[in-house]
């Protein structure tokens, strides 16, 4: 029983690994910066599709 659990765990990890490796990111939200060229447009999709995007997370400047 112990070995079966180990084998099942191993297969579970192998099955889930591609999900983590191929995780894709995406969102489309209104741009609130009134000095941005995309103000009131939705970013990053569609305004910056086909861009490399750098997403900076912060709660203050």
């Amino acid at each position, binding site marked *: 029983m112990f070995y079966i659990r180990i084998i099942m765990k191993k297969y579970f990890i192998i099955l889930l690994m591609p999900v983590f490796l191929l995780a894709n990111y995406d969102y489309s939200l209104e*741009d609130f*910066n009134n000095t941005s*060229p995309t103000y009131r447009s939705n970013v990053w999709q569609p305004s*910056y599709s*086909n861009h*490399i995007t750098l997403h*900076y997370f912060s709660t*203050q400047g």
Partner: protein
Amino acid sequence: MSEFQYELKDNYGYENVVIIAVGKSNISNFNSNFCADSDLPLVMDEAFDYPIRAQFAPYSDHKEMAIVGYDGELIGNLALNSGLNNFAKDYILGILAENYDQSSLGDINGDSILNINDLIIIVDFILSEIYNESGDMNSDGGLNIQDISILLSIIL
């Protein structure tokens, strides 16, 4: 952060790279802090579920940056607790050097080919009043008939 965006474009020719600030909808001073004298886009992660942070976890803590490639895949991440210093800039430049596609102007759908499909998307963006930097062929900050004309002449 805004200066670095200009640096990427002016010094390295990375036209199709954008830094997007992801604030929190319940933090009202973020806009005045981050966006003062900045033209970088700012989006608000909806409190209190913060779905964007959840999507990018574990790379979405305070002052973290996630770098995403053309296909939506994560190609880098770093913490900017010490600000955007030379180490951070070198790291980002290294990621861009490996992943940036120089020929993406006009290629709005990202299929590496300039054709009628890109033209249709530009027309759709113009009609919907959506700005897209890849479609801004003359870099005048807007999408209009001139961009269609330039792209059409390239395609033909």
